[in-house]
């Protein structure tokens, strides 16, 4: 008949929708490819965002059913929360922000599965495989939601960062929760329609998410966020199969695959296996050992002043800066850049040594230093940096702890034994800027601080670095 109905029927045809979805995930893949280089990364992210917009528009065009008000309400709520959160978060709080965004994604997944269960009255007249994928999404989404929220709480320091666990029974409890959740899922898949069982399954998965992340200590946290990111991706892919939606399948699976790679890379960087990390308790025994170590070493720490540190740095010919989470917390990256400029004016060769898991996420330090305009060629990765420490006059450790702990190489009983470290102790002298003698996030004492060639400069990283820069200017 007239043009508008024709046009609208074309817009709503399945093949047109599928074409839009195919364009959308081609854009996702192209966007991720762009993320592989610093100069193309911004565009890559925007390409992926365009793909996402397209996928959302395609989906909205294709739906006939009502409830537009609910859609507007949901999107408005999400935008009202998400945009200010993303705009205002400080660069240093990025890891917990990613954890939180990951968590809500997992939350959406399990809520969607729950709706599917309710709308089909307990998966009645539903193909078994759809039921299975929907249940899988519900369990994994719920684990990811709760796990990410705990990770957020720990990084935000709402919850103590130290490992909190049930001790040796932890793994049995985790296993039991997993078995209960799977048993409930099997029960539902084989014909139980009771919503009580479904809710029970969600609760078991929720407890499991808590139980997995609570015992995990600081250094392992980046690995866990990455793993939960992969989990949410996989659960989104499962939702895609349950809803027969190719865009969801592709996007979810790509995230699942990339998250798995990243998780593995990080675990390898720390010389730890992923199962060992999930089994938890990192630093649980170590905290006790650390406390004993502290008693043993007490009194041999040498502290220094900003003026002395400035003199030491000014007369060095080669300085390596080792940044860590302390620099992030204190927002000290700009102050560090100023110090570097001041040293370079005096002809001191300055470089940065970046441990793969320094801070709370891989690449965390690179992001902060890039913010402060530190040139890329001054940033050395671990292998490169370790070859240089032997001919370095002063290593300036700014708020890094566990990644410099020589116990990882020398003490087989240390919980971080075997983790590759920055061999700061190989340099001629070391200055450590640290707020106090408290052990790091992993709760392990650092032997480096008791080394006779190490001097401790206690204080907030930003003010300590600024004081050194000021003292340098006066020399």
């Amino acid at each position, binding site marked *: 008949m007239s043009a508008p109905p024709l046009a609208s029927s074309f817009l709503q045809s399945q093949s047109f929708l599928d074409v839009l979805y195919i364009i959308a995930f081609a854009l996702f893949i192209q966007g991720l490819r762009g993320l592989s280089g610093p100069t193309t990364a911004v565009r890559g992210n925007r390409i992926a965002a365009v793909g996402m917009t397209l996928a*959302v528009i395609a989906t909205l065009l294709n739906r006939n059913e009502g409830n537009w008000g609910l859609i507007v309400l949901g999107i408005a709520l999400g935008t009202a*929360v998400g945009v200010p959160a993303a705009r205002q978060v400080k660069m240093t709080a990025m890891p917990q*922000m990613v954890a939180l965004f990951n968590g809500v994604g997992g939350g*959406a997944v399990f809520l969607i599965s729950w709706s599917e269960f309710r709308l089909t009255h307990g998966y009645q007249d539903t193909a078994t495989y759809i039921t299975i994928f929907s249940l899988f999404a519900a369990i994994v989404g719920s684990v990811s939601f709760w796990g990410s929220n705990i990770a957020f709480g720990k990084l935000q320091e709402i919850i103590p960062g130290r490992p909190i666990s049930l001790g040796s029974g932890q793994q049995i409890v985790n296993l039991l929760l997993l078995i209960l959740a799977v048993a409930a899922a099997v029960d539902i898949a084989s014909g139980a329609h009771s919503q009580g069982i479904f809710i029970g399954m969600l609760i078991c998965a929720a407890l499991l998410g808590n139980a997995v992340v609570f015992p995990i200590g600081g250094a392992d946290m980046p690995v866990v*966020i990455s793993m939960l990111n992969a989990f949410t991706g996989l659960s989104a892919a499962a939702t895609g199969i349950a809803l027969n939606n190719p865009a*969801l399948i592709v996007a979810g699976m790509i995230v699942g*695959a990339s998250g798995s790679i990243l998780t593995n890379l990080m675990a390898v960087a720390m010389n730890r296996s992923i199962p060992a990390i999930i089994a938890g308790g990192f630093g649980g025994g170590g905290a006790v050992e650390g406390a004993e170590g502290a008693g043993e070493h007490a009194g041999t720490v040498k502290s220094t002043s900003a003026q002395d540190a400035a003199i030491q740095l000014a007369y060095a010919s080669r300085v390596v800066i080792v940044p860590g989470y302390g620099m992030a917390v204190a927002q000290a990256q700009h102050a560090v850049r100023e110090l570097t400029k001041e040293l370079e004016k005096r002809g001191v060769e300055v470089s940065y040594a970046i441990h793969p898991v320094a801070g709370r996420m891989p690449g965390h330090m690179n992001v902060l230093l890039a913010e402060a305009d530190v040139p890329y060629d001054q940033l050395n990765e671990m292998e490169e940096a370790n070859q240089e420490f032997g001919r370095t006059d002063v290593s300036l450790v700014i708020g890094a702890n566990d990644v410099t702990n020589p116990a990882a190489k020398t003490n087989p009983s240390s919980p971080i034994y075997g983790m590759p470290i920055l061999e700061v102790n190989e340099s001629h002298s070391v200055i450590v800027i640290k707020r106090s003698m408290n052990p790091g996030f992993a709760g392990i004492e650092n032997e480096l601080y008791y080394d006779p060639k190490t001097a401790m400069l206690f204080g907030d990283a930003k003010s300590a670095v600024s004081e050194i820069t000021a003292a340098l200017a006066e020399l």
Partner: protein
Amino acid sequence: MLLASTLTTNLAILVLAGFIGFVVISKVPNTLHTPLMSGTNAIHGIVLLGGLLIVGFSGNGTFNKIILVIAIAFGTINVVGGFLVTDRMLEMFKSKPGRDSGKGDQEKKP
């Protein structure tokens, strides 16, 4: 209607997407791991589509409507927040005057 069936096609898509994920991501340098995690994090916000699709079937149940609105809101936070945060992070890697030579060197490294 709500839950259609084309299992083998979808499984094929799933497996291929997994391989693409591995291949594409394996090339990302350490430096960009945080933005990458954040970027992929935004992409799995695509579950938003699931909420958009089934909200039409939620009928009259108030509870169904509530959980689906929350799901859509969660999905939106994931997508919008994720892309914005990634964009902010990546802006810092963009070329700035006087830094171009340093960046060129970095890119040539394997």
